[in-house]
């Protein structure tokens, strides 16, 4: 064994370890993957919401995949305020027009991007939302303006099915 030359035994060891590692990996993976969202959870992927009763300045909160979604019919002042913000002032720069399909309707996940609390409507220093947990302030476009949250409130995939119905997901 003093020689450095690879012999048959070394090959057998390496091959055994390699096969063993694959076997352990293949056994452990199902144990890990079973914890990921299952088929029944994934199946609840879209929700249709009737928004005909919403007047400007009102927000409704609906549940989509276990998370609240804010649907706000914004007033003209709110839209103007959201558009007037300079990009340099934003922590996570994003234009208001990129966050909405129709400026009147703001649809976004009502989940604070800090640690997942539900921000409160019509609160905070920027007339938008305020998270009571750790003090994040969002503006009328749901963009983070002040506080520990790193990013703007997320806009989910959605579409207008007709004039009064929004399909989320």
């Amino acid at each position: 064994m003093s020689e450095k030359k690879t012999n048959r035994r070394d090959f057998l060891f390496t091959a055994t370890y390699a096969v063993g590692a694959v076997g352990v990996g293949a056994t452990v993976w199902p144990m890990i993957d079973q914890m990921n969202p299952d088929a029944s959870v994934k199946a609840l992927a879209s929700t249709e919401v009737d928004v005909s009763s919403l007047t400007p300045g009102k927000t409704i909160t609906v549940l989509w995949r276990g998370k609240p979604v804010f649907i706000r019919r914004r007033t003209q002042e709110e839209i103007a305020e959201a558009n007037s913000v300079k990009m340099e002032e934003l922590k996570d720069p994003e234009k208001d027009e990129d966050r909405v399909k129709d400026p009147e309707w703001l649809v976004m996940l009502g989940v604070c991007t800090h640690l997942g609390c539900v921000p409160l409507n019509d609160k905070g220093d920027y007339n938008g939302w305020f998270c009571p947990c750790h003090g994040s302030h969002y503006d009328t476009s749901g963009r983070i303006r002040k506080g520990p949250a790193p990013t703007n409130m997320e806009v989910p995939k959605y579409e207008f099915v007709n004039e009064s119905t929004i399909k989320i997901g």
Partner: protein
Amino acid sequence: MSDQEYIPKSKFGKWFNDRLPLLSLASHLTDYPTPKNLNYWWTFGGILTFCLITQIVTGLTLAMHYIAHADMAFESVEHIMRDVNYGWLIRYIHANGASMFFLAVYIHIFRSLFYGSYKSPREIIWILGIIIYLLMMAAAFMGYVLPWGQMSFWGATVITNLFSAIPLVGEGIVEWLWGGYSVDNPTLTRFFTLHYLIPFLILGLVVLHIWALHVPGNNNPVGIDIKKPSKDTVPFHPYIVIKDGFALLMFMIVFAFFVFYTPNILGHADNYIEANPLVTPAHIVPEWYLLPFYAILRSVPDKLLGVIAMLSAILILAALPWLDTSKIRSAVFRPLYKQFYWILVADVLILGYVGAMPAEGLYLLIARVATAYYFLHFLVVLPVLGFKEKTLPVPLSITEPVLGGSPNLVMAKSKESMKQ
């Protein structure tokens, strides 16, 4: 361990012990030589064992009535409180038992800090203790989620979201932990499983913790190495058993006070409202025993750095045996360390206080100063102090200062030379 020579008296005992040396183990545990100057701060090991057993027994009985399902968990807890015979008592013992467990573990940890019990040759005991402490926090957190009240739900949301701070894979990890896109039924069932499992892991680690303790033996208030068995030691039974038993009784009075007179004072009223994913309670606060770390989390304005700071605050303890460079164990002989020790105690209490307050204005400023000091203590004060501090002379043995009335080395030595 010197009890290999133990021989059972009875013939059956000998036969059995040759095959499974349980009697040798029992003999080792009863005769185990213990420093005779242990004070009441040393009784918390026994108290903690009692707490663990209490949590396991009450937890087992609660599990017979609890239903781990998002639609039924909250009601099943109310069912335990109202319908199950003595259910209220068992649940209140379990819920307050968690607080008592942490109360005892904090005293136990701070005793180690004062008397330098984490130092060589007891590093492994200390690290095992830190792992037990981490598991305790995990068990307590998951247990708090099970009643599926508002604090349960939002506490679970906030804490699991800590993992989303990890770059790139964070979101994936959080969904994996949840088993969905939010905290929901899959989260509850897995938390129940793990909450059930962890106490038994802790039990195993406690066995290792005690095993590791029995190799070098107990540290003691004087902090010196002692010969064992010797004039400096007494057998564990009956001396320590009686002392631990008395302390345990005192502790149980405090425990019973909470259970019978103010069973909800350590909890949050919001947790008697069923979980609602659409409404976050106005003020989310963790249980009191996690508040100092929560304050550290909130004192850092950046999400990822806040999480890192919070985890480091706990993990830094594992490095303590190497951060503290002083050879002297007990703070009794370290005049400067003794002062810094009490500043640290105050610092942690302040962190706990501001952790319960809103993170704004003066509270935030105090939290930031206290967080900075916490790390300063471990990373700067302790390493430097070992080199700079002028320590007091340490006695040669435990017996020496007691019998001779001479509290230090020089006097003990001069006494010795006088005898000769």
